[in-house]
């Protein structure tokens, strides 16, 4: 176990150095490329959020895009209000087109950046907390969690499109102002912005890893393996599940805020089933058991999509689908599992044992 932990730490350090130093240097500090990569990093955050609930606690949240989308809309609402400051009443343009005459009350808090940043984390977390209590108190597990979260996602997206007066409907929120982050006017094509997103990703990974490695993480893994037994030990399973579910939602909301900044709009496709599936694919490819693995999976798949979808415009989704099926069938632990197996074998060889002896020794322990 110790050996594996050491490899894990090494992996974390390599990953952090790569995104802090390697990537900007490789991209030649080019603004456009940095912006694209910042987008991948914000998607990596939501992937690691899913790995936190799915990989650690076994809660397959097929509606992760819902909390991500809420974060994105929160940020976009603030930026839209800033952009509409010159209009009469500060009313966003699309509301005028839809005959809304005054700013609705639930838009008012987003005039303040501080409140926006807090709500971007708190709204998804509160929503997930309510859903968590609703589901986990009733001991809903596995497949049913997946279906409830999926149905919720579909309902939420329909609702956002329906309430066109307040959400911009199918078009989403466009024409946003650049973010003014406490005096720093954020240019999304700058190195500074890249480091903001990279810093957020690292912070999210650190928070996630702290949870995974704590006693809470241990209990969560036990719940994943056998929730009934954990319950017999006297743990409040529902409370642990709700905790990890809402933490994961807050991180997803955080990622959504960054994503709205990078793309400079918020659209109902962020709350879509296709996007939610994409998150699941990234995590499955990278490895659901490791937060960093999931982040790497998101970056690699998106990088491949960016590079290959020019060549295979139509067949890209096909390639992605086939790859996903193959991963689920033959590499259920993803690239992380593959690496871990490889490292284990190398370490054993170095210690001069044949693989058979090592296995015998492991089972003896």
């Amino acid at each position, binding site marked *: 176990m110790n050996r594996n932990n050491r490899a894990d730490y090494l992996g974390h350090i390599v990953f952090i150095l790569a995104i802090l130093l390697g990537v900007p240097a490789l991209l030649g500090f080019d603004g456009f490329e940095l912006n694209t990569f910042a987008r991948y990093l914000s998607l990596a955050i939501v992937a690691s959020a899913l790995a936190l609930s799915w990989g650690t606690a076994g809660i397959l949240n097929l509606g992760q895009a819902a909390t991500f989308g809420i974060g994105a809309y929160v940020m976009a609402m603030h930026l839209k209000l800033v952009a509409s400051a010159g209009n009469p009443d500060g009313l966003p343009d699309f509301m005028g087109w839809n005959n809304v005459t005054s700013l609705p009350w639930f838009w008012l808090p987003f005039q303040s950046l501080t409140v926006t940043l807090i709500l971007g984390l708190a709204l998804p977390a509160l929503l997930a907390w309510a859903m968590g209590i609703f589901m986990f108190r009733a001991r809903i597990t596995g497949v049913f969690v997946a279906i409830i979260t999926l149905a919720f996602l579909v*309902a939420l997206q329909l609702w956002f499109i329906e309430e066109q007066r307040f959400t911009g409907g199918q078009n989403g929120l466009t024409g946003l102002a650049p973010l003014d982050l406490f005096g720093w006017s954020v240019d999304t094509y700058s190195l500074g912005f890249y480091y903001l997103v990279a810093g957020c990703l690292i912070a999210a990974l650190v928070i996630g890893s702290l949870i995974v490695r704590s006693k809470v993480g241990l209990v969560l893994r036990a719940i994943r393996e056998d929730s009934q037994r954990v319950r017999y030990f006297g743990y409040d399973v529902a409370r642990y599940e709700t905790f990890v579910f809402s933490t994961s939602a807050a991180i997803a909301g955080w990622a959504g805020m960054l994503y709205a900044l990078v793309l400079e709009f918020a659209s109902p496709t962020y709350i879509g089933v296709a996007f939610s*599936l994409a998150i699941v694919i990234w995590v499955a490819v990278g490895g659901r058991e490791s937060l960093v693995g999931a982040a790497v999976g998101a970056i690699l798949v998106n990088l491949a999509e960016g590079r290959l979808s020019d060549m295979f415009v139509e067949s890209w989704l*096909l390639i992605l689908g086939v790859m996903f099926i193959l991963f689920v*069938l033959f590499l259920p632990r993803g690239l992380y599992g593959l690496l871990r197996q490889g490292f284990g074998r190398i370490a054993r060889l170095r210690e001069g044992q044949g693989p058979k002896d090592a296995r015998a020794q492991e089972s003896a322990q």
Partner: protein
Amino acid sequence: METFINQLFAGASLASILLMVALGLAIIYGAMGVINLAHGEFVMLGAYVTWALQTFLGIGLLPALPIVFLAIAAVGWGVERAVVSRLYRRPLDTILATWGIGIVLQQLVRIGIGPESRFIAGPGILSGNTGFGGVVLSNYRIFVLVFAIAIFAATWALMAKTEFGRKLRAVIQNREISECYGIRAEKVYAMTFAYGAGLAGLAGALISPLVNTTPSMGTYLVVDAFLVVVVGGVGSIFGTAVASGIVGETTAFFSMLLNDTVGRIAVLVAIILFIRFRPSGLFPQIVRR
């Protein structure tokens, strides 16, 4: 009164479509615990096979039905052998793998046939409407309703009266012991999956004149159909029939009262609440695990 009856019929028509889509899903889920998210794509393939038979060979919708059933059953059999059969020990992963299969099938059709919507003519004998007093009902929709009930009856008979059904029920109750009696469980599973897929294909063929036939048509259907299965109770095809009636009528009712989108949202929320308070559905199956 006439609006009410029309609305009732709209709900029943929706319910009959849901029933045909959900029935195959219910059998697959009930028998193997596999949530087949590629089911919507089987429906879509059914519609496209009908379109191809009609456009290239001039075969009308009704004579095409048996061909569609066999074709999609073959696709289902292949999917079960190649992918699903490897995942029976990992139920959550079957969701993911079948989702992946759905994407692949959808994308293959989009590349091979094109993303635009296709037109499929309904059968000529069933065009026109039948009027009862002030109520006017479309003949084709009545036919779909009757056909769905017939399919349901046939499926029930297959389960309850045939040797295949007996074997399947034995495998559902206890796989190991039924294998001891010489039943080849993997063969039963493959046949069941193929039958469920074939039903989806039939559903696709029948709804093709009523809806837009596009590569993504299945995506909307599978979520609704799955919710119907869960509401009905896992493994109970009778429950599936009742649930599709309830969901169809409720959707039609809410759509009339509010509008289509709000109606859909209301039904989704109602179903989430239902799963929360009765996760085993309306007619839970009692099985020794």
